[in-house]
């Protein structure tokens, strides 16, 4: 048998204030300061137990964007050529711009993914709901996270079902592109059918009316207790970051 105590969880606001501060710094601080923060974050990543996942994520998603950024900005910016690759001429100003964008991107990605790796999504969502956020938007976010898993599992099941009918996706790229349809159509259909059924399901779970979207008439099982120290420290860090950024306007 469960008791009320089983559903109390702690949340430290310091995490989201730090993330917000870093995102702010990525836009408002001088490049040297940004690089310093980047070095600290990278050092933290190296000792993190999740570093393999972070590196893989970085290589798959962030690095291609950075490389594309360097190519586009380097080739199309006006100014002096500093670097030639065959027929391609890379301009200094463009490469510098691309570097700034790259630093910004990495700071934002690391701070946000670090935040989500530290906090549980149900804790954050209940924290936001307790502060008056509309539950619809919270639930859309939570469901999107779950849908990634669900669609991935579904795609695997579809792939297996089609392989059992002889679909061979290991050949050349052209053949594989042709075979996308037998995989994507069932996926899309199930996604669309699910959406309608989910709407009905939420209605069936008493989530239909306006009252249940805000906290007042909902009794959340999960109670979130907030760390006061973290709150004060976090706010201090954010205020300091804003102050540093604002000081650039007057220097």
């Amino acid at each position, binding site marked *: *048998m*469960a*008791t*009320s105590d089983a*559903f109390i969880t702690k949340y430290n606001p310091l995490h989201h204030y730090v993330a917000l501060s870093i995102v702010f710094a990525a836009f408002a601080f001088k490049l040297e300061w940004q690089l310093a923060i980047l070095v600290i974050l990278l050092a933290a990543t190296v000792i993190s137990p999740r570093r393999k996942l972070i590196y893989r994520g970085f290589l798959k998603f962030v690095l291609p964007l950075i490389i594309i950024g360097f190519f586009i900005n380097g080739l199309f910016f006006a100014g002096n050529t500093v670097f030639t690759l065959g027929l391609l001429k890379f301009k200094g100003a463009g490469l510098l711009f691309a570097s700034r964008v790259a630093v910004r991107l990495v700071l934002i990605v690391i701070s946000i993914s670090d935040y989500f790796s530290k906090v*549980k999504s*149900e804790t954050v*969502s209940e924290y936001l709901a307790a502060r008056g956020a509309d539950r619809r938007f919270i*639930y859309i976010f*939570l*469901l999107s996270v*779950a*849908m990634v*898993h*669900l669609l991935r599992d579904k795609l695997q099941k579809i792939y297996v079902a089609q392989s059992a009918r002889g679909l061979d996706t290991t050949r050349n790229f052209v053949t594989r592109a042709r075979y996308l349809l037998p995989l994507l159509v069932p996926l899309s259909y199930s996604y669309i*059918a*699910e959406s*309608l*059924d*989910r*709407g*009905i*399901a*939420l*209605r*069936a*779970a*008493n*989530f239909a009316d306006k009252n*249940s979207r805000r906290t007042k*008439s*909902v*009794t*959340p*099982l*999960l109670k979130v207790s907030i760390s006061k120290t973290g709150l004060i420290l976090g706010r201090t860090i954010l205020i300091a970051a804003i102050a540093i950024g604002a000081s650039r306007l007057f220097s």
Partner: protein
Amino acid sequence: MPLALSAINLEVNERECIMLNGLSGSGKSTLCLAAADFLKAFPAAVSSGKIIRHRTEQEGGTGIAMVMQNFYSQITYLRPTVFEEIAFPCENLGLPRDEIIERTDDAIARIRIGHLAGRNPLDLSGGEKQKVVLATAIAMSPDLLILDEPLSQLDPESTSHLGEILSGLKRSMSLIIAENDPYLTLKVADRVVVLSDGKILADGKLENILGPDVECEIDLPAWTRCIMELQNGDRTRDHAGTAIRYELNYKRAIETMRKI
């Protein structure tokens, strides 16, 4: 637009269990959605008619809980554990926390899924998900529980356990169950409503509604089918000399067959 249901007049009494039988495409799921008043969720649907509900106590919510045919979409994934998943609709009713926990514990115990309470809903198998959705519906303590093909992913052991659960639930709520399983029908149904092509073909106790037009629309117990086969050769008569066509009682059917 294809016609799913027409001219449906259906009465569900307090603490009554109605079994909806019928071939696939006969309108069972649509009738379940209509009873739960969900047809308005379909933007292109044109429906007419009224659903009249007589409720003595007005609590929060509609008093109706439903397990849909596509029960997968009823796992919300908005909560990290099965326990909280089951508690979700009760949270939305604004019930006190202690009552939510009590109802959830009770539902979990009834369905015997205590071993799943701490698990993540993403990791459950189909049958486990179906049981979780059923527990969720029971935790809502509805006046009317609507189940659309609740046995689809269950193995035989779970199926017979569900039969016991449903018999117990009848004491506190009305039930509408869309399911073709004749053994479940015999176990729990007070009335059988047979749908055919969107219309009600028959409505009443199973022994009273069986006839040549109904017998090809619904599944019947094996012993009934044996007696029907024997009756085709005119070998079954009761003591008054009347040919028995539909023998629903297992013991009487076996006795009749032994006398052949």
